[in-house]
């Protein structure tokens, strides 16, 4: 007994080190099982407030550019309005609406890591919950991962965990949007497109209909380069993003009102299968 205690006292620093290292490893690897790292993210109160404070100061420097983007978007929407591309306004009531759009602002952005997260200034009080889609006026941005009362973190498409259904515009050939070359923050990769699909550099990539998070046809980017992958039966496509990931301010959060129903139905079908 004496020896055990002596041992503990002698190596207490080392044991403390091991203990703390173990804790950090647990935090690090637990998060692989999705949303268990509930408090270790920047959507909590303290970091949210500090980021809001810093954003309040720095956002002034980009006001003119931000304004131009909003005017540009208004112009595009007006074009559609006057050309009657949208449905008649009378058709829109609460029974035919599938998506609800909420607005927010980015208060912290990263794009240099392997898994990038964006912190936004809307949270559960604004009815933001996990797995809602986040877009900008130019294109897709990511998916809400963690929420607190007033803030949320968004898993950026620049993350090696990100996997989003995408397709080539005006066709139904779909694949998965991933980020493999994790140093280039303006290029993501589209995989699993069969080789018989005709491709041209410059083709537009949009979100596909398979997702219960994003509506169909949200712009993502254009084809920059394509090649066959190792199996020689699928393409490996570099997609240049429409969004400048280093410069995002105002964002829209998409709430799919049918998501719960879709997921329940899918779960039920899978359960019946077994």
């Amino acid at each position: 007994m004496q020896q055990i205690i002596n041992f503990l006292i002698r190596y207490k620093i080392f044991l403390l080190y091991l203990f703390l290292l173990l804790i950090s490893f647990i935090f690090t690897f637990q998060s692989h099982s999705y949303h268990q790292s509930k408090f270790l993210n920047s959507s909590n109160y303290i970091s949210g407030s500090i980021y809001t404070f810093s954003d309040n100061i720095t956002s002034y420097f980009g006001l003119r550019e931000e304004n131009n983007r909003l005017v540009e978007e208004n112009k595009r929407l007006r074009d559609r309005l006057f050309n009657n591309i949208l449905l008649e306004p009378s058709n829109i009531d609460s029974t035919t609406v599938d998506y609800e759009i909420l607005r927010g602002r980015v208060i912290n952005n990263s794009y240099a890591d392997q898994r990038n997260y964006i912190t936004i200034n809307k949270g559960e009080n604004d009815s933001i919950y996990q797995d809602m889609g986040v877009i900008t006026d130019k294109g897709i941005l990511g998916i809400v991962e963690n929420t607190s009362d007033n803030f949320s973190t968004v898993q950026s498409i620049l993350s090696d965990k990100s996997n989003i259904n995408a397709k080539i515009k005006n066709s139904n050939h779909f694949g998965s949007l991933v980020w493999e070359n994790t140093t280039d923050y303006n290029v993501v990769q589209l995989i699993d497109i069969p080789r018989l699909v005709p491709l041209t550099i410059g083709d537009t990539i949009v979100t596909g209909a398979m997702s219960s998070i994003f509506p169909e046809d949200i712009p993502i980017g254009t084809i920059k380069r394509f090649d066959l992958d190792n199996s020689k039966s699928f393409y490996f496509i570099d997609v240049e993003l429409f969004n400048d990931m280093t410069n995002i301010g105002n964002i829209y959060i998409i709430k799919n009102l049918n998501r719960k129903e879709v997921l329940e139905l899918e779960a039920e079908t899978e359960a019946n299968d077994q």
Partner: protein
Amino acid sequence: MINSTSFLIVLRFILLVLLQVLVFNKLNFFGYINPLIYILFLYWYPIKQNRTTFIILCFFLGLFVDIFSDTLAINAAATVTIAYLRPTIMRFVFGVNYEFQSFKLNNSTKAQQFTFLALLIIIHHLVYFTLEIFSFSNSLLILQKTFVVSISTLILGMLFSTLFSSKKE
């Protein structure tokens, strides 16, 4: 005297975390170079202090930076590692000298200070990027990132330590 030292340590802790998350995490020089300047906390920390407190403090230093930058607990793991290895590194750099009461960082040569800081940074960054990338098929990327970011942290760290060091007699 004790109080002023602890006060200085706490102040340094808070300022370095804020500096790291509000300024250096947003630097993104060449797209991915973000110097991890908060390591200077370990460089400046008094030598004759309780090691247990030191390691625990460093763990929380890393954890706070982690919470702000959404990096799970990677910073905490890397920081606690160099906190544990610091006495070994110091013995290597300064010889047995550093265990004497009179030893001060400012009295050592510039080359020694540089080596000390460099070793801290390299070990920290190696652990950090290994955990971040966490697939050894990417070992080249680990080395590249460690190398480039280490250099940037080192340059900035030397600048800061020169800027804020107490005057030599």
